[in-house]
């Protein structure tokens, strides 16, 4: 299939990459750009492990055709760290044990990032509801809720 040049902003830097029209954003990130933070879980839009922010909105990168992000801004978990400093959410997840195997964590962090950007002080129910599209088989939901609440409360 004919390849095309895709140009977009990835974690603050412009990238240009050759892609085919049927490739998903997840394919391009992981296979062509070696950005392996977004995880390929179900590859079907059901688990949320591949979530990235597209112009600040969480999207399933496994369901997003790569060419649709032309000229737009994509943030993955790799882009959360600034100047060697972990993001507040990353610190809270890490210190509060908000994961076990860590496979879902990049997706959880991106959705939580988007939640706090829209609602800096979410209630417990608002967190549960906003995060509900992301699955964690290790069952770290309670710890994730607490980590988000701790960030909202200014503890990090």
């Amino acid at each position, binding site marked *: 299939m004919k390849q095309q040049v895709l140009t977009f902003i990835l974690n603050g830097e412009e990238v240009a990459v050759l892609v085919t029209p049927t490739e998903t954003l997840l394919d391009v990130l992981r296979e062509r750009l070696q950005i392996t933070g977004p995880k390929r*879980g*179900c590859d*079907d*839009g*059901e*688990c949320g492990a591949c979530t990235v922010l597209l112009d600040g909105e969480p999207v399933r990168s496994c369901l997003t055709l790569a060419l649709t992000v032309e000229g737009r801004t994509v943030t993955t978990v790799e882009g959360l760290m600034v100047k060697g400093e972990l993001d507040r959410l990353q610190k809270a997840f890490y210190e*509060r*044990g908000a*994961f*076990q*195997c*860590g*496979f879902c964590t990049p997706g959880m962090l991106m959705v939580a990032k988007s939640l706090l950007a829209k609602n800096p002080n979410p209630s*417990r*129910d608002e*967190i*549960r*509801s906003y*995060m*509900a*599209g*992301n*699955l*964690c*088989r*290790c*069952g*770290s*939901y*309670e*710890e*994730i*809720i607490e980590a988000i609440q701790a960030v909202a409360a200014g503890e990090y």
Partner: protein
Amino acid sequence: MKKKGVGMSCVLHPTGNKGAGDPSQAAIQLKPDGTFALLVGAVDIGQGSNTILRQFAADALGVPIEKILVSNFADDFAPLCLGSFASRVTLIDPHAVVNAVEDLKRRIREWVANEWEANPEDIEFDGETVYLRGDRERRSMTMDQIAAGANFGGGYNPGFLVGTGAWQPAKFHAHDPETGEMPAVGAISFGCCIAEVEVDTETGVVDVTRLVQVWEVGKAVNPLLVRAQINGGLHIGMGYALTESSYPYWPTEDYAPEKLGDYFMPTFLDYPPELIYGIEEVPHPAGVQGAKGFSEGSSNGPPPAIIAAIHDAIGVWIDTYPATPEVILKALEAKKASE
């Protein structure tokens, strides 16, 4: 109509096979920079075995945990561990690690004694300092100095300072033909789960509204990980009790799940809005510092507690996992028909 009910379960969870052998191995090496490379066979799938085995090695050596590097890289090179299953690792592998540390200390004693022309039995450890008993002023070396000396030689004798260890709960022990007795397990952990549910008698949907789970774990080697495993075990337990099945569209396999979304695992919204965990510590005689495993049991507590709560709510015993809305409504219909 929504009906509330409360149910309780008690769990006895065996860990470590005592009847048929169940060993693990470990090796630890003093690296040139004074750190320690700990090799274990236990697979860390997120439960944190690498973390706690580092803790045990650091404790046994009397050095900060940052000095311990751990690897369980590839079966081809790693020591053997029978596996990360049945909550066996926390009971068994720490013994292998501690034995390996003792073996390494013996090697270090011998190496240092050779340098000082002293008796290895007179070499003492004080954290990262090694000294000659009775002459600490003149005869002492830091672990960094020993590491550099043994690994790089130079003015010292070269040495490869590695300790190895292995452990299992007991040798093979056949059934006693007279009594049938067989000490099958290395340790037992105990748990209790109390669930509160709300059953919608029109739709058959069961919501877990509150849940408490407490585990007696011997020694909570890492309380953060113990908590994650108690609350995390609930994920499997709740799914088992209420939603997860390979054949949710029973009765024919034609309707079996084809993708992840057909298989209903609990989400954030399914988790109880109020979730409480508890840890009890009663040091177990077979464990290092009293530690034993428990975590698989935390999946086993919730299902019977939830089923008992459903009984409390609507007066029927569900004997089929998972208790899907279909199962609940059929049970309610059967109850009505029999009345």
